[in-house]
Every structure is written in structure tokens, then in C-alpha cells.
């Protein structure tokens, strides 16, 4: 039994890789090969699907749109969450626990509940189909997440650090930006990663709040399935390209992923 322990993670990872392999495999095939024959490797190896995406504006703009609103959301979420998380980790104030709980309920709220009112609300204020609309809408779950994760990291910093700085004559802003933020920079990095990630994977709201100008890439994908016939190769290539950003950054945060998912509480 002892010797066979490597088998379980290996089989599991194999299981994880199979659908991804199939997607990659398909992205290098021509539509004819996909529909006409069943092959484990592309016979007619082609980059054509990727070329279409990189040359057709409606495709590559999808990436640009996604990246833009995801980045905006990450910046807004982290910037707003930093002072709030500091307040929660250092002070008791009127209604702090209720507030903390209220934030959590927004992380847990089903986006489907908000889909229609969001659409009407953002249309009413004239923000429909803009990047900032999606970025703001994603704040609904990303700000609570950011506050919780940052609070977890900040609570790990001893309060003596603050007190020493004040004794040394630092003003609060100077202490906060010069000493405190550098101390928790790994926490900020992890939080930014999680905001990025949840904004990147969420699509129900992103799709409902956009039409043309700010349409995310993954929503563009659904179009191929309906209008342009069934261009599976193209769909697969677009899918592969959406996996890449996550795959690149994941290496840097691998040891913090559990902490992030547990909202900074492991």
C-alpha cells in the first residue's frame, strides 16, 4: 500500500488533463477532420484556428475586453479592500461584525439572482456594454473576497509593528504605505490573483451586461456554436487561449491557493 501512494495523484492528474488534452488536440484540427474522423492526434496539423482568432477583430477584441475589465476590477477591488481590511483587522467599531457578515453574503449570493436587476440597473445609469460596468458588477463578489483574504493576512502581522512605527514618529499614511503595505505584499499579490481569477471565470454577469463593445472572449465563443455553423476547431482554439493566462500565473501562487479559497482563513 505504501508503495502505491503515488498512483492516486497520478491517476487524478491524468483525469484532469484528459479533457484539456482533447481541447488542445481539437484546436489543431481542421473542421473536416473533427467531424469526419476520430483521431487521437491531429492528422492535418493546422494553426488555422489560431490564425483566425489572431486576425479577426471580433475574436481578439474579446480577449482585450476580458483583460480590460478584469484588470479594472482587480485594481478597484484591491484598492478599496486595503483600508477596509486594515480597519477590520485592527479595530473594533460599531457594527463591524454585521458588516463583515454582510460582505460575505455578497460573495455567496447566486449571480443568477442579480442577472436581471443588474441588466436594468446598469442600462438605467447608461453603463450598459461598457468595461467599467462589468468591472463594477464583479466587485459584488470580489470586494468581499478581497476584504476577507487581506484581513486574514493582516491579522497575521503583529500589532507591535504599528505601535513601533507610531513611536518612531510615523504618521498614519506614511506608516501604511511605507511599512505596512510592503510587509503584506505577498498577501496583496494573492488577493489580486484571486480577484483576477474570479473576474476571469465569471460569465453570467459579464455576458448579461455586454452586447458588442465590451463582450468578453468566452461569450464570443458561444457565438460560433450558433451562427457560424459548428466551428469546433475555432471554439477549441479560443478555449485553449482562455486557459493560458491562468496557467501562467498559477505557478506563483501555488502555495497560497488553499488560503485564498478559504478566504484567508487556513
Amino acid at each position, binding site marked *: 500500500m505504501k508503495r502505491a501512494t503515488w498512483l492516486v495523484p497520478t491517476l487524478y492528474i491524468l483525469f484532469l488533463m484528459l479533457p484539456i488534452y482533447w481541447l488542445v488536440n481539437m484546436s489543431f484540427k481542421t473542421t473536416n477532420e473533427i467531424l469526419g474522423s476520430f483521431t487521437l492526434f491531429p492528422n492535418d496539423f493546422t494553426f488555422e484556428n489560431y490564425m483566425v482568432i489572431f486576425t479577426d477583430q471580433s475574436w481578439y477584441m474579446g480577449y482585450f475586453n476580458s483583460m480590460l475589465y478584469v484588470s479594472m476590477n482587480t485594481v478597484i477591488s484591491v484598492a478599496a479592500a486595503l483600508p477596509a481590511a486594515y480597519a477590520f483587522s485592527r479595530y473594533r*467599531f460599531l457594527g463591524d461584525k454585521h458588516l463583515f457578515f454582510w460582505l460575505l453574503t455578497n460573495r455567496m449570493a447566486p449571480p443568477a439572482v*442579480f442577472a436581471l436587476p443588474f441588466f436594468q440597473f446598469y442600462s438605467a445609469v447608461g453603463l450598459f456594454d461598457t468595461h467599467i460596468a462589468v468591472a463594477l458588477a464583479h466587485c459584488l463578489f470580489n470586494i468581499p473576497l478581497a476584504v476577507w483574504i487581506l484581513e486574514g493576512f493582516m491579522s497575521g502581522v503583529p500589532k507591535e509593528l504599528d505601535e513601533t512605527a507610531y513611536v518612531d514618529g510615523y504618521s498614519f499614511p506614511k506608516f501604511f504605505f511605507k511599512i505596512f503595505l510592503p510587509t503584506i505584499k505577498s498577501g496583496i499579490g494573492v488577493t489580486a490573483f484571486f480577484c483576477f481569477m474570479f473576474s476571469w471565470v465569471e460569465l453570467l454577469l459579464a455576458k448579461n451586461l455586454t452586447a458588442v463593445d465590451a463582450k468578453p472572449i468566452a461569450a464570443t465563443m458561444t457565438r460560433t456554436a450558433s451562427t457560424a455553423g459548428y466551428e469546433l476547431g475555432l471554439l477549441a482554439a479560443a478555449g485553449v487561449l482562455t486557459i493560458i493566462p491562468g496557467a501562467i500565473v498559477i505557478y506563483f501562487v501555488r502555495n497560497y491557493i488553499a488560503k485564498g479559497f478559504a478566504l484567508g482563513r487556513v
Partner: protein
Amino acid sequence: MATKSDNNRAWLFVIPVIVLVAFNAVVPLMTVVNYSVQETFGDNVFFWHGLGWFEDVLRSERAHAALARQLMFTFTILIIEIPLGVVIALTMPRKGVWVSVCLVLMALPLLIPWNVVGAMWNIFALPDIGLLGRLINSMGIDYNFTQQPLAAWFTMILMDVWHWTSLVALLAYAGLISIPDAYYQAAKIDGAKGWAVFRYIQLPKMKRVLTIAVLLRFMDSFMIYTEPSVLTGGGPGNSTTLLSIDLVKIALGQFDLGPAAAMSLIYFLITLLFSWIFYTVMTKDEGQ
């Protein structure tokens, strides 16, 4: 944990967060509340409808069926993902280069946009061009998830296991590596073997992370929408129409605002209850 001092001026720090979240949460939620007690015949003319929609939803067989499917789905994936995640965490390497390899590869599904997950599983499981579909059919089992409710359920659950088991495994692993070596040495001296070590050392140490894992998986699977809606679209028939899918069908498909709003609020109250449990567990042993 540092002791906190009283300071009501800390409210100033929280204002940006409150404004941003309230902008998103309170206004739309009030819209939902508004719709849930009114009837409309179009043209933006609304009539007071009292609690009628709530009664309708609570009595409607359609909502009951969607809730039943939702609970069935949530409990099935919990029963599979939690033990599987624990087993994977227990068998993962603790040292060396393989740790990073395992962590990175396992986390990969978590970062794929949710409708790409659905689309990927769709083409993976199609009986004619998908690897999985071909494989199952070549074993002599008639499998076509676009036509058979049972096959659709099987695919949907397999997809969720694929997507989220890593979350359980990563959390359990984080709990496991926090156990000091001294515990294992003490167990060795006492002559404790496999199961006893797991039952009396590892499991108690993992209790907190596992509670978090169960609650997170419960809540996230309870509000799942994108993946199954791309994979099966709720079909064949209504066989995989979970709560969120049904809600979106009613609200955006049929534009029945009143019933959809009432259903949203009931849905929201259920999640609120579980959020409270989650909150209690999370903050329990932090004192203050």
C-alpha cells in the same frame, strides 16, 4: 491574533467598500424585492400583488422540482468530492519538486472560465467526436448525454468532480502539512498505524479546513449556472435544470418578473442561512 482597540473612526476606512458593494447589492436587491410584490402587464405599469408570487413559487411544482434537482446535485457532488479530495491530499507528495507539479496541475481546472469548462466537457463527452463519449460507447454502453437524462446527469457530475475536487484536495493538503512532525513521531512511539493515525491525528487537524471545503462546495454548487447550462442547457427536457438555470429561464427567457423575483428572494434567503453558518464556522476560533 492581535487584540483590537475600539475606534469608530475606522468606519472611514470601510466607506469605499460599502459604497461599491451597496451600489451593486442593495439597489438590485431592492429592485428584486419591488418586482416580487407587484404584477405587471407591460408598459411599465405595475400593480400591488402582495405575497401572491411567493405563494405561487412555494406551491409550484416546477420550483419544487428544480430545488429537488439542485439538492440532489449538491449532495451527490459533496459525497464524491469530499472523500476523493481527502484521499488525494493524503497521497500527495509532501516534499520535493513533485509538490509544485501536483499543486499547479491540480489548480489548473479552477482557473478555466466556467463556460469554457462547459464547452470543453461538451466536446469531450459528445458520443461521436468526444474522447469520453467514444470510450464509453466502445465499451458497449449506449451513452449520449444530449438525449438520455441519466447520461446527462452522469456527465454533469463528472464535470463538477473534475472542476472542483482540486479545491477540496488543496484545502485538505493545506491542513495536512500544518501538522507538526512531532505528532507523527508520537504516534509511531505509541505504535499507531495507518487508520489510527488518520482517525486521531490527521482527521482532527483537517476538521476546520474540511468544514470550510464542505461549506464552500455546498454554496458554490448551489449557485452553479454557467457550466451545466453550457453543457446540457438544462436538458434533455428539464432533467438537468438546476435552480439557477430555472431562474434565468423564468427571468430572462420568459420575462416573468414577479415569479422570478419571488424565487430569487427565496433562493437568496437559503444562501443567507448558509452564509451565516459559514461565517460562524470561519470566525469561531478567532476570538473577539
